[in-house]
């Protein structure tokens, strides 16, 4: 039996029934990774020894008859922008190629407390800026469904690892779609929680007012389990929300009867891949057949979301990334004086996309331009939020495509930043509004997975997961794993 193919809840059952050990599960995932990761390249750093050691402690607990958490002994991976004490945290940047944090992120701590097994740190677009992992300072991760294609980004390593069986679950971060896009492209479930639901302490900041950590999993139940383990108020993050974390797995089966689904007209954009659109529309029809009610809605400010995002996110990034100057940590370039040292350090340490966004953001905040760009973007952001507030008075959730196309080919868009930015057109408004959204597989187009996005109001994670679960259980997408051409 290939243990790496199972879901966390299935493995948890086997563990508690003592059919398998956590060490066996971990070994299965590690062996799978040995085989697949030469092709997929999900990991920047692998932590096999620590993973096996943790698995062993879980087995000992089970042997002693202790109750263990649903994630205990279950191998998962962290995006390499979440701090791990003593383990390199690179953000896929040459700037932090050798950075070893002296502290754990809150999510890292919580997962350790849940006895989760961490098998490594996954690849991303440098500092989470990108939609394909092609902006990684080290290498590009491949889509397990077609290794000529990208896994999506920026959390592409975390998405690909789960799809390829190199991890049972993983964490990503989502600033403009960075969890949902790889989830869609890799045919798995990915959730961006409400802004503030999961502590950002220890997540290396890209755009502070938009960044949010969330789970990847191979089904909705696992996604719900991971969210339950990482969510909650954290006094170290002033923007985290004082609201109890639910057992999100508890009421997954309540169904969609009477549920009001909003279909936002503006998310079905021109230039959308036709079979992606038909896949989404068919899925919505199915939900209606299961008892949901469909309401067409309009969110007129959606068209401004992309521009708004690229002003706010880059402005915050230009400031957040100021600390990488070669003084206290990270790459230091040679220079005869402090200014030339700064310049060399940053020119050598940052890749082109990071430099582009820093310059864009610096410009947007500059005196004389602030009002026209940054301030106006903040105002439009408020309008976009109001669009959401308004529609959620009428509907329970919104359904939209996660991305306008399926996974594109490596190299296809890397020379055209604007075409790349367009991949996030359906996910970005959600980050601006701070609401939760989940992507789950809803079909295939030309053999590539299509992602459907379910969006809800603030702190509606439970509702979103229920809708997703209902849809998922009526299909078998979650039972299919990517057949990796070179391996399987």
């Amino acid at each position: 039996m290939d243990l790496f193919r199972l879901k966390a809840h299935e493995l948890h059952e086997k563990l508690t029934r003592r059919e398998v050990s956590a060490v066996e599960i971990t070994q299965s995932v590690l062996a799978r990774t040995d085989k697949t990761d030469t092709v997929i390249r999900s990991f920047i750093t692998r932590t096999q020894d620590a993973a096996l050691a943790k698995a062993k402690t879980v087995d000992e607990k089970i042997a002693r008859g202790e109750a263990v958490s649903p994630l205990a002994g279950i191998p998962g991976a962290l995006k390499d922008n979440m701090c791990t004490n003593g383990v390199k945290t690179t953000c896929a940047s040459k700037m932090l190629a050798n950075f070893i944090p002296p502290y754990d992120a809150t999510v890292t701590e919580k997962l350790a407390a849940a006895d989760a097994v961490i098998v490594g740190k996954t690849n991303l677009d440098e500092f989470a800026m990108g939609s394909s992992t092609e902006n990684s300072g080290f290498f590009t991760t491949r889509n397990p469904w077609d290794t000529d294609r990208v896994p999506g980004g920026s959390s592409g390593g975390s998405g690909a690892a789960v799809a390829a069986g190199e991890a049972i679950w993983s964490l990503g971060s989502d600033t403009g779609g960075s969890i949902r896009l790889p989830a869609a492209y890799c045919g798995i479930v990915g959730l961006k929680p409400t802004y503030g639901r999961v502590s950002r302490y220890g997540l290396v900041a890209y755009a502070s007012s938009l960044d949010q950590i969330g789970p990847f999993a191979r089904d909705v139940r696992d996604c719900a389990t991971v969210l339950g383990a990482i969510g909650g108020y954290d006094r170290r993050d002033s923007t985290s929300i004082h609201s109890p974390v639910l057992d999100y797995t508890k009421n997954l089966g309540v169904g969609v009867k009477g549920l009001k689904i909003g279909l936002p007209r503006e998310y079905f954009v021109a230039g959308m891949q036709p079979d992606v659109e038909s896949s989404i529309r068919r899925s919505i029809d199915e939900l209606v057949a299961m008892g949901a009610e469909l309401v067409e809605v309009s969110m007129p400010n959606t068209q401004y979301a992309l521009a708004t995002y690229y002003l706010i996110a880059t402005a915050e990034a230009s400031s957040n990334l100021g600390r990488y100057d070669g003084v206290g940590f990270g790459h230091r370039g040679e220079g005869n004086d402090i200014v030339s040292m700064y310049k060399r350090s940053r020119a050598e340490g940052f890749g082109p996309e990071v430099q582009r966004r820093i310059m864009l953001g610096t410009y947007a905040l500059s005196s004389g331009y602030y009002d026209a760009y940054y301030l106006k973007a903040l105002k439009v952001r408020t309008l976009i939020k109001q669009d959401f507030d308004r529609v959620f008075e009428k509907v329970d959730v919104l359904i939209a495509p996660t991305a306008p196309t399926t996974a594109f080919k490596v190299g296809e868009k890397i020379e055209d930043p604007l075409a790349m930015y367009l991949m996030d057109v359906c996910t970005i408004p959600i980050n601006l509004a701070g609401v939760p959204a989940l992507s789950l597989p809803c079909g295939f187009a030309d053999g590539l997975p299509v992602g459907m996005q379910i969006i809800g109001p603030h702190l509606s994670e439970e509702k979103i997961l229920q809708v997703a679960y209902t849809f998922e259980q009526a299909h078998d997408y979650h039972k299919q794993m990517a057949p990796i051409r070179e391996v399987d």
Partner: protein
Amino acid sequence: MQFETVIGLEVHTELKTASKIFCGCTTEFGGEQNTHVCPVCLGLPGVLPVLNEKVLEFAVRTGIALNCKISPYSKFDRKNYYYPDLPKNFQTSQYDLPICEGGYLDIEVNGETKRIGITRVHMEEDAGKLIHAGTISNSEYALVDYNRTGVPLLEIVSEPDIRTPEEAKAYLEKIKSILSYIDVSDCKMEEGSLRCDANISLRPIGQEKLGTKAEIKNVNSFKAVQRALEYEQERQDEVLSEGGRIIQETRTWDDSRGVTLSMRNKEQAQDYRYFPEPDLVPIIVDPSWVETIRRALPELPEARKQRIMKNHGLSPYDADVITASRPMADYYDALLAAGAEAKAAANWLMGEVSKHLNACSLDIRSCPVPPANLAEMIALIEKGTISGKIAKSVFESMWTEGKAAGVIIKEQGLVQMSDEGELGSIVEAVIAASPQSVADFNAGKEKAIGFLVGQIMRQTKGRANPELVNRILKEKLTGK
């Protein structure tokens, strides 16, 4: 042309909270380099700030003491600039919505009271300290000490209401006095816990529009602020009188040479790209909390001064000196509480006590003579047990030996001789032994009496009651 000077001051004061503004590190001064640090104040990747509530409380306390409006809604902003003592390369500060606005304080110059407006008070974090290998311009490298990084600061900005360097000094003294009264800062300029930047410009008398200003930095004492402003006032007057133009710039004060020097040209002003700090939530201040703080505020120097003048009849000058620092005023109140007479207590405090404290570089809080002991001594003078002159040497012994006045007087046999019979016979003996002086006196030389008093004092080792000696002597000499 006659010019008028316009001065505005920006005061930075370090708050004496136990921990830093956004993390739990200690704010203690000194300490081995880079030991009072953590991932948050070092600005490591991934960290987030959390506002220390004490900082907010201290800011509100300061705002109330400076008669400011406390903003019900305020926020933090990032001030972006690159400097190696700033680990994140931005300073978390307050820009357009500071915690306090629109206050004032009254200063006293040449016996006149003047009101100086306070534009704003805002919270921010301090930067670290650079240690250069050599001078700033030729050192091969610099080292950074981050202990001070994240220590909470308040910036207090005055309106351009100050007209003379002397007023500037009085304003700073008043600020210092208030901040230490309300116990939010140590205000030690030498440790950098109080720093001042001064803006100064000149304009023709009668003109409303402000002239071009210079900003003076690096001034390390109140005296230096006054000197730097005097120098700058003269410099600008000269430039303008010769038909020249003042350049808007930052100037540094060179204390040893007594001049201000151009530092950098503000016309290519730095763009700090302020924007709202996304990692902190806006600060909502509950008015009832402000009221609680207001009620708990100690008596401020001005009120204390008025009270002392009214209740104890001290002169404005004496009251000012005594209330300039809270520990001094507390000492004074303790003297009175122990029964000392108000005027005498003031004289001793401003005289012998201050003299001794200064000589030993001591703060009144470490005064070796407790108020109760000094009050006892003052009472002994009142009663005539010791003379004022003897009291000085008693005080000396109290200072060095720490004993009570009564004990010292007994031990050293210093009780004043006030027995008329006893003194009378000593006076007679001295008169008998000094025929020349007696003859001089009888010849109308009043001065001769001084010699005789001296003789009597010598024989009594200074213990004779001087008033009594004078009276008896005159009686005996004139035969009345």
